């Protein structure tokens, strides 16, 4: 039988339409692999096997009835980050404080996926409340990088990126507040796109920092990411920051042509703190674009060093406000140790939140408190304006900005959490994109000597998704997708197990 789970999402979608593979077959193949590999990688918080088979029946019926003919991903199994509300399915944000929370409604993106015939197979692991860059702050334990299980998958959408890399899902949804789609995609050797702020509805996304959060897609290539982005994007009355655009047809941009495309590399993106092998990878990528006829040059962009402090002040301030709703009254965890109402609030929160979340709420409370508001919060908002201005000026000259996704490849498990400041600094190339609300994609551009994937980041202007999709597609034509080597080994195990089963039956 065909090796279903190694297919791309779009190829599987086509095979399902042509009745070469049934939806139920695809779901079965996916769960076989998930059961085999997830004990090693721990990508999932909740697997939805029963629901997936029920969905499969329904979607198969709709396909057979001639519906969904326009829906390229109908019947394709996919995963959702566990901070996106799914009706009737636990949504935990990888936190003790929401360990048993079952949303009574679907996020807008989930409604759209269901309409398009997606098969949701599970909810993926993440840093608690999306606060972290390693998926280690999850209350449910860390996800492992499929390229090397001693390394982190990145974060906060580490479960989604690892699941896609490990072929435990054909594509996945993540959320990106300061790099949480792009950085794990980079560490896991897959492609992740964060669209322009306002492109995808945030209704039903459990908020971290509302002015920065944006849902996006992770896939094994840009075409899959683009197809999924088309499904979830669109104006939504339920999100007042959602922007009504004329055209969401991103697939038009899947063209192998970057001739005369103007690409700028900020000199500071190649400066201090950048790993030498990552720099080489990025410069090679730049050369590939040059060879394909793009105009690539370095330029000075100011303010790069100020993005991280501005980002953390703003994100923490917004988080301290957003997370005040978790108080042990309406949903989630409630302490057993209380007398009055104040105890319920305080003890439920203190026992329910992890250290990193508490730290960020305290930073947020501090920078918003009287006496410090101007020096920190207001200052950060002004720095944000300057960073945005810098991008706007750059986009007068360039169509795309190119650089690394992260200064290093995936660090080892346990290396990052001991020094929070060091962890924050590793977000240097991603956070400014959120501050300015721009679209950006991370895609694999080779590996370092340790064999770990290097992430290339392409940043577009506001609503310039098509520019970066076109560039990413052109780049992919020159650089072949690599699957994690360890998967070939677990595949052998598959054969081993299935031959055992056959043997058992024979006897």
């Amino acid at each position, binding site marked *: 039988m065909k090796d279903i789970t190694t297919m791309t999402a779009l190829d599987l979608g086509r095979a399902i339409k042509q009745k070469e593979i049934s939806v139920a077959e695809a779901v079965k193949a996916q769960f076989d692999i998930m059961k085999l590999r997830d004990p090693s990688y721990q990508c999932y918080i909740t697997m939805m096997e029963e629901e997936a088979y029920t969905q499969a029946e329904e979607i198969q019926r709709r396909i057979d009835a001639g519906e969904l003919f326009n829906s390229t991903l109908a019947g394709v199994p996919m995963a959702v980050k566990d901070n996106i509300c799914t009706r009737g399915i636990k949504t935990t944000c990888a936190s003790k404080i929401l360990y048993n929370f079952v949303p009574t409604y679907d996020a807008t993106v989930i409604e759209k996926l269901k309409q398009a015939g997606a098969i949701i197979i599970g909810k993926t692991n993440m840093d608690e409340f999306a606060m972290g860059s390693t998926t280690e702050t999850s209350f449910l334990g860390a996800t492992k990088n499929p390229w090397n299980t001693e390394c982190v998958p990145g974060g906060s959408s580490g479960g989604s990126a690892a699941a896609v890399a490990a072929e435990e899902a054909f594509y996945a949804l993540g959320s990106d507040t300061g790099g949480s789609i792009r950085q794990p995609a980079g560490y896991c050797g897959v492609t992740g796109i964060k669209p322009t702020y306002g492109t995808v509805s945030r209704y039903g996304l459990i908020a971290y920092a509302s002015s920065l959060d944006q849902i996006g897609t992770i896939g094994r290539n840009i075409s899959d990411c683009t197809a999924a982005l088309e499904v979830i994007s669109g104006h939504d009355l339920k999100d007042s920051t959602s922007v009504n655009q004329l055209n969401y047809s991103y697939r038009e941009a899947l063209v192998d042509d970057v001739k005369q495309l103007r690409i700028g590399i900020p000199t500071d993106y190649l400066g201090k703190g950048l790993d030498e092998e990552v720099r080489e990878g990025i410069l090679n990528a730049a050369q590939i674009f040059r060879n394909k006829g793009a105009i690539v040059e370095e330029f000075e962009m100011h303010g790069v060093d100020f993005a991280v402090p501005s980002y953390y002040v703003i994100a923490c301030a917004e988080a301290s406000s957003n997370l005040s709703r978790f108080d042990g009254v309406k949903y989630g965890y409630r302490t057993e140790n209380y007398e009055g109402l104040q105890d319920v609030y305080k003890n439920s929160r203190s026992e329910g939140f992890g250290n990193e979340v508490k730290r960020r709420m305290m930073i947020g409370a501090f920078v918003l408190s009287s006496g410090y508001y101007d020096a920190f919060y207001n200052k*950060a908002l002004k720095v944000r304006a300057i960073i945005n201005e810098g991008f706007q000026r750059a986009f007068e000259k360039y169509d795309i900005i190119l650089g690394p996704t992260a200064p290093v490849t995936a660090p080892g498990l346990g290396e990052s959490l001991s020094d929070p400041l060091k962890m924050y600094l590793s977000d240097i190339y991603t956070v400014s994109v959120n501050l300015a*609300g721009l679209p950006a994609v991370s895609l694999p551009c080779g590996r370092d000597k340790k064999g770990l994937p290097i992430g290339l980041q392409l940043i577009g202007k506001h609503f310039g998704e098509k520019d970066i999709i076109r560039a990413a597609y052109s780049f992919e034509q020159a650089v072949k997708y690599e699957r994690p080597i360890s998967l070939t080994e677990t595949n052998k195990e598959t054969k081993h197990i299935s031959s055992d089963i056959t043997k058992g039956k024979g006897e």
Partner: protein
Amino acid sequence: MKITEDTIQYVAALAKLSVTEGEKKKIAKDLEDILDYMEIMNQLDTEGVEPMSHVLPVKNIFREDVVINENNREELLKNAPKQKDGSFAVPKTVE
């Protein structure tokens, strides 16, 4: 900037969190490092710059005040740690 244990006590109260005496020192040190780092923003001249809380222009979006969500009180209450008579239950707060 010096972050004292009193500041931590104050900030924790603002965030409705309790911190033990033992944790305070470590939290104060972490916050001090982080806030010290954030102060590098002062090297950037922002005189006359308008603070930007949103990148794209945001405006109030109005709609008719009609109920569109379903009545799912039962379902919602299932998530409550404690419920009573169709409401969320909390310890007595008013004598």
